[in-house]
């Protein structure tokens, strides 16, 4: 847990290259750093800053605007329970109460073994399966108390690891397509070779 490792630095450089302006890669790089460590470490924010050409403070200032970017450690499984209107009408607060009691922590907190963080989420666009729950941003369907407990058991035993990977967004699909060489603005072309075209993984 610290700086981006070599493999991720290489991925990060490729990501910067798909955008006309390097700074546009700031948020995707934060997602990449979270895929590595689960949260945005100060060292990773320094790396992101260097890669996109801003100060670490600018990365931190930007990251703290966004709900998905964590500048503090979180559990291996971040469980987001939506309590917005559609889910509330389907018993979301009752489910959240149960989740807090079952795991012994309040929303916003992490269990002492580092396994689970509970978040009270805003609408996750899963209102047809309410109350809607995500684990590491994967939809796990409408849950009640019993199916929540089963979910926790399955997550502990690792039996849903394939379907619910670790943190990070867009890390399981190759992202090397994007910008034609040379880029249309001054910012492009300065950051290494342009991305190859037509390279499906």
């Amino acid at each position, binding site marked *: 847990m610290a700086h981006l490792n070599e493999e991720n630095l290489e991925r990060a450089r490729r990501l910067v290259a798909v955008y006309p302006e390097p700074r546009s890669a700031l948020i995707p790089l934060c997602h990449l750093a979270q895929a590595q460590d689960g949260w945005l470490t100060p060292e990773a924010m320094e790396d992101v800053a260097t890669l996109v050409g801003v100060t670490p403070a600018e990365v931190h200032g930007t990251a703290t605007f966004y709900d998905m970017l964590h500048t503090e450690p979180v559990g291996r499984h971040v469980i987001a329970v939506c309590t917005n*209107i559609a889910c509330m*009408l389907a018993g979301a607060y009752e489910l959240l109460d149960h989740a807090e009691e079952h795991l012994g922590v309040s929303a916003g907190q992490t269990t002492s073994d580092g396994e689970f963080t509970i978040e009270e989420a*805003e*609408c996750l666009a899963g*209102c047809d399966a309410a109350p809607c729950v995500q684990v590491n*941003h994967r*939809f796990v369907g409408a849950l009640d108390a019993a199916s929540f407990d089963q979910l926790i058991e399955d997550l502990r035993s690792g039996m849903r690891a394939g379907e619910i990977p670790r943190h990070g967004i867009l890390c399981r*699909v190759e*992202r090397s397509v994007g910008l*034609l060489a040379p880029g249309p603005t001054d910012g492009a072309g300065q950051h290494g070779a342009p991305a190859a075209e037509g390279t499906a993984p």
Partner: protein
Amino acid sequence: MITDVAPIVTSRMGYDDSHTLERYLATGGYEGLRRAIALGAVAVREEVDKASLLGRGGAGFPAGRKWSMLRQADTSYLVVNGDESEPATFKDHLLVERDPHQVIEGAIIAAFALGVSQAFVFCRGEFALGLERLQQACNDAYAHGALGSRIFGSEFSLDLVVHPGAGAYICGEETALLESLEGKRGFPRIKPPYFPAAIGLYGAPTVVNNIETVSNLPWIVLHGGDRFAALGQGSSTGTRLFALSGRVERPGWYELEMSKTTFRDLVYDPSLGGGIRDGGELKAFIPGGVSAPWFGPDQIDLGLDQDAVGRAGSMLGSGSVVVMDHTTCAVRAAWRITRFFARESCGQCTPCREGSGWIEKIMRRIEEGNGREADLDLLMDACDNIAPGVSWPPQQTTICVLGPSIPSSVASGVRMFRDEFLLHVKEGACPMRAAR
């Protein structure tokens, strides 16, 4: 009336592998793009004008007119807005996860019509699976020759980047979305300029279209704008994807012909909402996302029509309908919606930042039984400070429309259910608690 019009944007939802290139090609995929290239950009723009396609993101602005405002410049961009976060809206989630190639093809057709060579699909970060499928579709489209240099052997070249958001409602506002895409905090930009078509991404002219809007383009190009415009009536043409949630038996997405179908059909028809859950009674419904003022049962026979809903004092907005029944506490419902706005206000403008927080606090104390009778007037006064007159459409005192959206639910609650608010004060508790 529920018409038997064939679906336009949900035609592949019956297939388990609807997200794959193989299925897409087997079901007419990328034929729209081939036809667009054969027709030429001018003809494609004419078809979209003829279709009278209204933007499906929430504001309902005609897509063709938005395109026509694009300032001529050496560099311009197309950005597809898939940051869907309006509470109770889940249509874009469906489209990116289940038919990502249709989104990509629509974006390519839009870029071709506009003559831009760089496009972005900004997709909400919480859609992890949708993002993976969208990126895979993008990679496959390059390999298929539908993206990159000389698309399908033509002179047209386009690059497309799938961009993940990071969790902020405000980034659905198009200028905030562009700020976010530039790697910054999602602060909406000062207007004017009113449209990114003048000054957008990196200061270049930019068209921002919603995911559902561009998903209609392959069909429009293949079948013609006139056939699209023949569906629906008045300015509400084509079909639309409605998201139904709340206290109904069958919450879900339903693609319906615009205008012809009514809210009653949507909520009660056995093939759609299936009626109020557990045989309950309809109390109120939100016709188009939580930014919209509520309707009572007396407005259930209105058509799913942008103009009709507007004239009745609300909006069709993002096409999401939330149903409240007799067990729903109006105070609690309005409080939860206000809490959302208080959390999601970006903080730039005082009326929105402070107003949402204070309204949320007052609403909560009423719901918890600590309210005062004078709180009702205080709430309306706070609403008036955000959107003077608390009318519809609202007056704006802020940079973007998040602020003026705050009073919708509060004012609806106070005006439609004043007695229920007062009962909370009188009893010192929520009178609906037992019903839940």
